[in-house]
């Protein structure tokens, strides 16, 4: 059993009668791993199952060789930054980390050593005496990652960490995630393709509780090779184009619009083939697997 991997086999999960994960099989290795999917794809459920916060239905999961049923041991090696979280508003940054460090069974010496290091690393040293309620969204996220790293876990799970951050904070946060990856497994769960593109080599695409793709980001992009086209259309043609094809980008110039289309075949004689990017690869992956795309009602072709 590999001690540097998370192995998920035949994982199913239901909430009452509603099944949200279907026979998932996934192996996650050391380094940054992106879990990409739309809202409601089942990402948070999967993250919570790995973090022992939600019971798995059936199947097997081992985290660094430890079965998920052994929650106490899993908690020892996992750091988790939930999608929606906050902290006691009246506590200062330092007090919060100290409190959570105690709950992580860290002794005083370890807390004294680790907290200043993390504050420094996350640019929070000058804010250490600030109360949590006075922190900006970005600072709160950084504090969130600090608490996840506090006990030096082997696995770090971050769920939608950049949601609500401004572009600058988002870039800084993504860089930070890459820095902390090192010898750890870092799972970045997100619906923002750019976050995965900027940070991860490995990615899995989850949709409707099923894994649609598992591999390198470059493979996902390459899969869309020769499937991406640009086409200049009139504004009154836009609605029809969007209905018939998967449109991944639009640029308006004067009375015309240049649209970026993902399709199996050249959608129009005037359409020009172009190099795919991650978003194209992701959209193509969704379409190829029959995922429903909002506003897109294919008749023929259209990237299916």
């Amino acid at each position, binding site marked *: 059993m590999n001690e540097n991997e998370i192995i998920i086999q035949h994982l199913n999960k239901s909430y*009452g009668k509603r099944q949200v994960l279907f026979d998932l099989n996934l192996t996650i290795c050391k380094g940054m791993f992106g879990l990409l999917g739309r809202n*409601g794809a089942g990402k948070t459920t999967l993250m919570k199952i790995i973090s022992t916060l939600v019971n798995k239905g059936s199947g097997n999961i081992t985290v660094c060789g430890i079965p998920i049923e052994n929650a106490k041991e899993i908690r020892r090696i996992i750091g*988790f930054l939930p999608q929606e979280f906050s902290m*006691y508003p009246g506590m200062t940054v330092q007090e919060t980390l100290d409190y959570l460090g105690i709950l*992580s069974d860290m002794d005083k010496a370890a807390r004294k050593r680790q907290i200043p290091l993390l504050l420094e690393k996350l640019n929070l040293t000058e804010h250490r005496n600030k109360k949590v309620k006075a922190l900006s969204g970005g600072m709160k996220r950084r504090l969130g990652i600090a608490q996840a790293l506090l006990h030096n876990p082997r696995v770090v799970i971050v769920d939608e960490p950049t949601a609500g951050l401004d572009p600058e904070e988002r870039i800084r946060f993504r860089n930070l995630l890459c820095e902390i990856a090192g010898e750890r497994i870092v799972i970045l769960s997100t619906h923002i393709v750019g976050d995965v593109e900027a940070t991860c080599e490995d990615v899995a695409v989850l949709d409707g509780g099923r894994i649609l793709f598992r591999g390198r980001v470059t493979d996902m992009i390459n899969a869309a090779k020769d499937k991406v086209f640009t086409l200049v259309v009139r504004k009154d043609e836009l609605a029809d184009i969007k209905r018939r094809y998967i449109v991944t980008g639009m640029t308006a110039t004067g009375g015309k619009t240049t649209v970026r289309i993902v399709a199996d075949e050249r959608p129009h004689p005037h359409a020009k083939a172009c190099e795919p990017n991650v978003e194209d690869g992701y959209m193509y992956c969704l379409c190829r697997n029959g995922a429903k795309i909002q506003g897109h009602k294919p008749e023929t072709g259209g990237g299916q």
Partner: protein
Amino acid sequence: MNTAAMFFKECKKTIKSIPYMAYVAILLIFILTQLMPEFKKIDEPQPEQRSYGVKYTEDPEIIMPAAINNLYQEFISNSYTAYPLGFYKNIKLNNKKQEEMAGILAEVTGVSKDELLQSAITEEFTHVVQIDINAAINYEEFLYLMKKADRIIGGGSMYSELYLYQFGKIDKTYEDALTEYIDIIQKDRVSGAYARLFSDYAGIILAVCPVFVAVTLGLKDKMSRMNDLIYTRQASSIKIVFVRYFAMISMMLLPVLLIAFWLTMEVVKFYSEESMINMYANFDMLAFVKYTFGWLLPTLMVSTAVGVFLTGLTGTPIAILVQGLWWFFGLFSGIRIMEGGYGWSLAPRHNILGNTRVYLENFKLLMVNRIIYAVMAIVLVSVSALVYEAKRKGRFYTYDSNRKSILISIRKVFVNYEKISKA
């Protein structure tokens, strides 16, 4: 070591919470305004004193005539005093019920029903009849008829089981008073009597206020959206729940102990000029502390544990309602044993300075009562730790896209909620 650090952190959290500050304020105000006026030096009774106070006897010869006289007075004026749910209420009966009441009085006194009714409808009470207990009526029959009278009035009347004892009120004799005084000096070692009165008043607060602190702190993780951060830590659920519980208990006991020390000094002051040389040798300086731990602590433990348990289980403040009702009905039903007796009350009453004999006679019952409540508190907190662990592992976890369904699904009250996930 880590447990100690966690304990101090939790103590700090408790102290900084607003309900805790309110609890300290209420406790202090209650003691100052309600208890302190009754805190006075107990003087040795002297022969030929005008009064030695009153006591209650269970002698039917005393209770029966006093109760019947009172009932007759209320009957002729058709104005009955009652305390349904503990609150004063004046009751006026309709003709049919008055007739029924006349029937009861006729049975107890032997006076005809018509004559009794006549006396009741005459203005200015010109036809008041002389009433005496019917010699043919025994005490059991009398009690049965009083119960009936109470039902006619609507319950909570002076003839209910709860209040009937008050008709056994008689004056204490010099010998009674002297015996009581000697008990206070020798058996209570003076301060014990005061400590009991303190326990009576403080118990009223400790039976209800701690639940507010427990609920607020119990909901704090949820309100601060910190549950997931704590659930994924390594500390065991038993450790988290018990350390938090003991931190709350310690912090809520702290002001009680401080007040206890202060009151000990107050009692010492009463007797500072006492000529009895042996008084200080006999004085129990630790009585208040002993009573705080032995009498008050179990009450505090239970009201806090109810808060911990129900808040942990439901994630709602329902514990306030549950403990509030328990407190209210406990207080009301404890009226009968307000001056000792204790029974199974959560907050045993002893609303009198002295009455040592009653305390000693019921000491074993009181001990059993306190031990049972303390054990019950520990059991409740242990179950809370199990619930916490289950929630931590997502055992009660459900996916709820429509929070309104909470109104129609009782089961869902006991689960963690997850809004529609964004992922």
